């Protein structure tokens, strides 16, 4: 899992004070401004994932997440499950070896050993949610063409509409989407909403970011503390609620090892 959660967050957040006036920016420039929010060394947070099906039945998962980037920008992530009880103690480790390759392990306490798992596809679901790995991975700007296509007000915020379309054959092949529309605030360049279109060009998922605020202890990092992804076809919904976000706090490199994956919470 490359760049866990960061692509989505990247589209929802901007670096305050780091941009020129909106009139001068292209779609690509707007998206690149968001990317600066993820120039961190470490990030730690708690997250609750709520899965809601079409019958309004809810299931939730609570995890703690640790992330670290090395000097080459390669990301390692450790996720430990805290709730519910039947998955408590389980863990997930992802270590990026290159931009195209990573190592993943799953730890299940009942088995008392870690299991190497395959990297799967970008369009695979992440942790059984409405998010795919493509949604949560950091977006590679070179793989898309961006186009500013207009303006729209989202929840009272005046936003640019930026269309992102896979720009090369490989990305077109592995992506689950034919295009995505990002709604970026004209005031602070935070993306408030994303529309995802399937391979047939039909709108089928909508992501909304709310509760956006500066990360405590930082002056230039912002995060959307609530993300809601809705699948219009299945009427299934996933809500991610973050808390206790810390950026560039002390995290031992040893944390991203099978040793720590298997250690109890």
């Amino acid at each position, binding site marked *: 899992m490359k760049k866990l959660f960061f692509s989505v967050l990247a589209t929802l957040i901007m670096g305050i004070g780091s941009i020129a006036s909106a009139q001068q920016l292209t779609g690509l420039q707007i998206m690149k401004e968001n990317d600066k929010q993820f120039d961190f060394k470490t990030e730690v947070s708690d997250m609750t994932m709520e*899965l809601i*099906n079409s019958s309004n*039945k809810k*299931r*939730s998962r609570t995890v703690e997440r640790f992330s670290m980037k090395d000097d080459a920008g390669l990301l390692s992530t450790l996720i430990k499950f805290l*709730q*519910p*009880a*039947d998955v*408590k*103690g389980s863990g997930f480790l992802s270590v990026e*070896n290159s931009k195209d*390759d990573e*190592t993943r392990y799953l730890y299940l306490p*009942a*088995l*008392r*050993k870690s*299991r*190497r*798992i*395959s*990297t*799967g*596809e970008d*369009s*695979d*679901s992440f942790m*059984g*949610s*409405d998010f*795919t790995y493509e949604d949560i991975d950091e977006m590679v700007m070179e793989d898309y063409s961006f186009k500013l296509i207009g303006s729209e007000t989202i929840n009272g915020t005046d936003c640019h509409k930026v269309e992102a379309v896979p720009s090369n054959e490989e990305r077109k092949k592995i992506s*689950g989407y034919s295009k995505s529309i990002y709604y970026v605030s004209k005031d602070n360049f935070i993306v408030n909403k994303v529309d995802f279109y399937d391979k047939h060009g039909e709108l089928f*998922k909508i992501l909304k970011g709310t509760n956006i605020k500066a990360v405590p202890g930082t002056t230039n990092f912002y995060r959307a503390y609530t993300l809601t992804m809705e*699948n219009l076809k*299945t009427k*299934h919904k996933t809500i991610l609620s973050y808390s206790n976000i810390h950026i560039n706090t002390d995290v031992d490199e040893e944390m991203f*090892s*099978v*040793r720590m994956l298997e*250690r*109890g*919470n």
Partner: protein
Amino acid sequence: MKTIKIILALFSICLYHLAFSQDKYSISGFAELDHISFLKEKDNKINSRNQGILQLDVASNFSSKYSFFSSIEFRNDLSDETRDRVYVDELYMDLFFKKWDLRVGKQIISWGKADGFNPMNTLSPTDYSDVLDTEDEDIGIFALNGKFYLGSMELQLVYSTLFTSSLLPSGTSRWQVGTESTVNIQGSNYNTIYNINVSKPVDKLSSSQFAIKLSQQFNNLDFSLAYFNGYNHIPQLIQSVGTIDNTANTAEINIEQKYYRHQVISGDFSLALGKYIFKGEGSLFIPQDIPVDDQYFQYVVGLDRTFSNVIADNNLFVIIQWMHEITNNGISYAGRDFNHLFQKNIMCRLEMDLSSSTTLSLQGMYAIEYEDYYIRPELTYNISDGLNLSLLADLLGGNDDKGGLFSGYSDNGRVQAKLKYSF
């Protein structure tokens, strides 16, 4: 009874501490209720069972330098009292250092990368009192277990002074191996009188067991090599004829259940090939001090893959594995010998999420040599977070003339309902 009192006393101490420092300890576990009905009734055997299991795990969190863990299982089988138990599954202390960890106490050590059958898993025995229900039934051993970390390399050393055997089916169990009522000796038939003698290693230093495992991780490959010098958890049955009484027309048959010492040289690997995981493990068993056995090699190789869609409602997980045993000098072992169960078997498991709360799985195994099979369909419904209801069936059958495991127990097909609440 003494053991139970000690366990309850230990548990009371833990609860006492919990009352005063809840943030430093955590209690978790599960409660499980099972009903099992066998499809064919047998005389003098248990034809249906109800059981309840309560497992309590207590873990400490008060230091990054050390921690404690204990797991106690209470099991009450209303039909089979021999399966009742209050059991300390694990009770150990962890010490954490910069480059190594040490675990001391009763612990389950699980080795091997294959699914379901692990020839490399030589350290911890298993509760086979219900042969079809061995999930979460590993038994802890008292051991010193050290792990040393050198970058992506790990060296594990295990030392155990006390032998712990696997639990085998009792006399009332439908899994008890049958004994013949008569025997033919030199052309005459005699009624049999069985004398069973269990020969376990004595608790002394010379009975110590030890193991070493070296593991290495690469970007797409994990592998390890291991050596074990200790006892087999499952006994070899050595049969001999004792006193023959021509007047009473009886013959004593002596059966020695011998837990013999052996050396095991093992290796395993797990290789990521894009969307697939290719893995395997193998062990060379070198028995010692036993007259009727010889070296043998068991291995498993397999492939798994997850197929996923956008909301994971139809995720499909597939495993296929080949299990094989190679014997020395063409020795052929009985198909129902617990030490040689999987001689030429193919196993497949499919697991599919039918919805966000319902999972259907199908596991099957076919023994080529013995022409018999085992099939387990299972439907699991997540009632709420932590509460799951499972309905499953175990179906066994095949060519009984071949003497295989599954055909031999074809009358033990059954259905089961399981309600499990994790907390």
